[in-house]
């Protein structure tokens, strides 16, 4: 197990290094001039040169990348004009645009995206696996049809439309909920919950159809297998059969899919974040790409990368728990 974890860790670090290299490369191949953009309109070439120097863009690319790596391990200093700002390790640099430390920009936005992604995962697992279970066990009945229709409808509508519809119905017409505003979990857990309820529901409606399908198919497959028939013949209870055997079989694929979806949520829930005005990672990334704010883009990519890799590692461990035939090597 120790060896396994160590190998996973080394793999993770190399994936992240490769990621940061690729992002750096893309930015230097793409025709853009971040110093000109940061300087503003009608900046003279001399002024652009000053900004370039301040941002460290006058150095050769490999040196810029080396400084970036140095920042991660030992930290860096930046001039504020009136003084010096120390950026502690792991320092991801400062934003070209605002001069703010990328790590602190990420730190304020990460809880928002984490709240959104984790909550949404809970919601889509409840709705998706629940629907899958019901449709496997109550084939052709009303509850099955209703739930399947709901999840399919959710999956076939764009996230944006689902969100808007929920806003109209629950905030505008029925007025059961206030228009969502993000409030931190530590500030006010109750407000946090109410503020995220609609974004979670939106993502859950959108994502759950595939979980329902997956659960239903694996359940039916397992239930048709010989050993289940044997268990039945031995008089094992139906409830026990479903929870201990059929559902367990379905769980492995659900876990694998969840890990991928959760990882994507960290950088890819832009539409949901935009619609509900959540100041999360996805929107930071889109905005930073538009204004060629390289340090922020690299920072977000790395953090998203960490989550994808980490979520997959957790999924691998959970595999072993759900399916005893899996051995971690």
């Amino acid at each position, binding site marked *: 197990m120790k060896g396994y974890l160590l190998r996973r860790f080394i793999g993770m670090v190399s994936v992240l290094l490769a990621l940061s290299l690729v992002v750096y490369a893309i930015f230097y191949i793409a025709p853009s001039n971040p110093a*000109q953009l*940061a*300087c*503003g*309109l*009608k*900046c*003279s*070439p*001399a*002024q*652009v040169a*000053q*900004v370039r*120097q*301040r941002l460290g863009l006058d150095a050769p690319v490999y040196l810029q990348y080396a400084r970036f790596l140095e920042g991660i391990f030992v930290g860096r200093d930046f*001039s*504020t*004009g*009136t*003084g010096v*700002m120390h950026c502690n390790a792991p320092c991801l640099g400062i934003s070209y*645009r*605002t*001069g*703010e430390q990328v790590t602190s*920009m990420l730190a*304020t*936005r990460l809880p928002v995206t984490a709240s959104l992604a984790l909550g949404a995962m809970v919601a889509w697992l409840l709705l998706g696996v629940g629907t899958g279970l019901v449709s496997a066990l109550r084939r052709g009945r009303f509850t099955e049809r209703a739930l399947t229709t709901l999840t399919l409808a959710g999956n076939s509508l764009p996230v*944006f*439309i689902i969100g*808007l*519809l929920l*806003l*109209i119905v629950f*905030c*505008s*017409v029925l*007025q059961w909920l*206030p*228009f969502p*505003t993000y409030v931190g979990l530590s500030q006010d857990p109750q407000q946090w919950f109410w503020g995220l309820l609609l974004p979670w529901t939106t993502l859950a409606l959108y994502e759950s159809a595939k979980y329902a399908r997956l659960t239903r198919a694996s359940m039916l497959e397992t239930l048709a297998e010989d050993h289940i028939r044997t268990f039945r013949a031995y008089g094992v209870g139906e409830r026990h059969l479903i929870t201990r055997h059929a559902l367990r079989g379905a769980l492995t694929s659900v876990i694998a899919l969840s890990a991928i979806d959760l990882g994507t949520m960290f950088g890819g829930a832009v539409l949901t974040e*935009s*619609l*509900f*005005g959540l*100041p999360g990672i996805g*929107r930071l990334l889109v905005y930073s790409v*538009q204004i060629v704010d390289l340090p922020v883009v690299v920072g977000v990519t790395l953090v998203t990368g960490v989550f994808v890799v980490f979520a997959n590692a957790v999924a691998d461990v959970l595999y072993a728990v759900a399916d005893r035939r899996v051995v971690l090597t």
Partner: protein
Amino acid sequence: MSHHPHRSRRLAAVAVSAALLGGAAACGPKSGDTNSADATPHKGGTLYVLNQNPQNEFDPARLYTTGGGDVPSLVFRTLTTRNRVNGAEGTKVVPDLATDTGEPSQNATVWTYHLKKGLKFEDGTPITSADVKYGIERSFAPELSGGPPYFRDWLVGGAGYQGPYKDPQGLDSIATPDPWTIVFHLTKPEGDFPYLATMTQFAPVPKAKDTGTNYYKHPISSGPYEVAENQNDGVHLILKRNPYWSTATDSQRKAYPDTVDVLAGLDPSVINQRLSAGTGNDADAVTTDTNLDPAELAQVSSDKQLASRVGTGHFGETYYLAFNPKVKPFDNIKVREAIAYAINRTSVVNAAGGSSLADPATTFLPDQAAFGYTPYDPFPAGATGNPARAKELLKEAGYPNGLTVNLTHESDDADYKGPALATAVQDALKAAGITVKFTAVQDDNYDNTIDSTKTEPGFFLSGWGADWPSGAPFLAPIFDGRQIVTNGSNFNSAQLNDPTVNATIDRINTLTDHAAAARQWGALDQQIGQEALDVPLFHPIYKRLFGKNIRNVVIEDWDGRLDLAEAAVK
């Protein structure tokens, strides 16, 4: 000066959001009171602002505003400011920190201001002329990049100055003979200097409290409100009263609410949805950057109660077809004239959202007196174009069988420079025998493409908004030959360098009587218009919702937005 001072909204979700807005308008709760925007304003409460764009870089040195901006003007007082009254009167410049709008001397190259007595920062320390000088000098620092370009161009020694961090001596061209007097020495006559003095760079900054690149987190207020909280670089700003601000020295800002809560990063359809539903705090909310789109406007207009909560604003802005006469066949004035005759302004206005959201334009200057608007139409094509006259001109130009041209446009319709407008142009030109092919450029990269003399296309959709309501910031960047920039952003798309035009611009810039200058800008506009260097298409109109508890709605023609310093909450 900007191609798009206000990004209008994305059109992707328009149809849906409009349908939903309509539904809400029909089913939503009806407010019992008849809304009257001008009822007696009430002091206190919280004014909510729901916006798309975050108030980034809340540092007076880095902001690029017209007339001091919306939210910035609540915190930063400047030497002069915009006149806070409705309509055309709101294009005038009035004193703010200063006792008057400035005393010009030496042919408008020297401008002197005297500060009012009793002005204080949020910490109670008195505001002096040295603080105003320091504020302007900071804007030169490369650490605080951004802001408008005028200071480098206009102030003596500005071109090489690197800001007070590298060069603490300061700029000699800004003199402060005593704590209440400040004198500016300019490189050339600038009759519009009082308009420039509305920008946030003219806000005082106490040197002792300057924190460089971190100043944006808590800039020291001179206005009615100070920053209580700034989350995520302007995504959520909470402003509370500045106890040292007083109406005794500020006749412009009413500052009725106790708190102003600015929440940005919202989706445009959600903003309009919230303003129309008006539940909870949203009844006390306004927006300064989100227009109603055509479909939403149609829905809102059919509901009497909602229609009474739509503010109409005019900002000096012109959208036009631009030519690069260095590219064939646009070097031929007859071809350019033919296109001007062929254009169908009715379909162009429809593509921009219809007659309630756009006025057809035949002049480059916006249709407001402050700019020097002088109605003219050098190529009278009527409301729907004159293809017959266009065909004649093409024949004279040597294209009896018509021709094919390439029109460059933005890839989406958010800025009135997208496929909708391009198609309207294409249809009109087809009737005149001109086949239009399209080149779409990603909107992030559009300005870079059209503003570089190296990549500028021959024929493209463009727009221009003024930094202040005057002919100078409208005509000079576009038509002054000395403002052609070959290694940066160039706005003189036609690359016109006509010595008589340049001389006329210089002559008008010496005028300090705005009305006299305006007349001459109008005449210059008409003169340049004959050369068909562009085809003016339309001037946009803003329609924006405000919450049902909002009173004392003031929308100046200076920027066409609801003035946050005037609004009250019931």
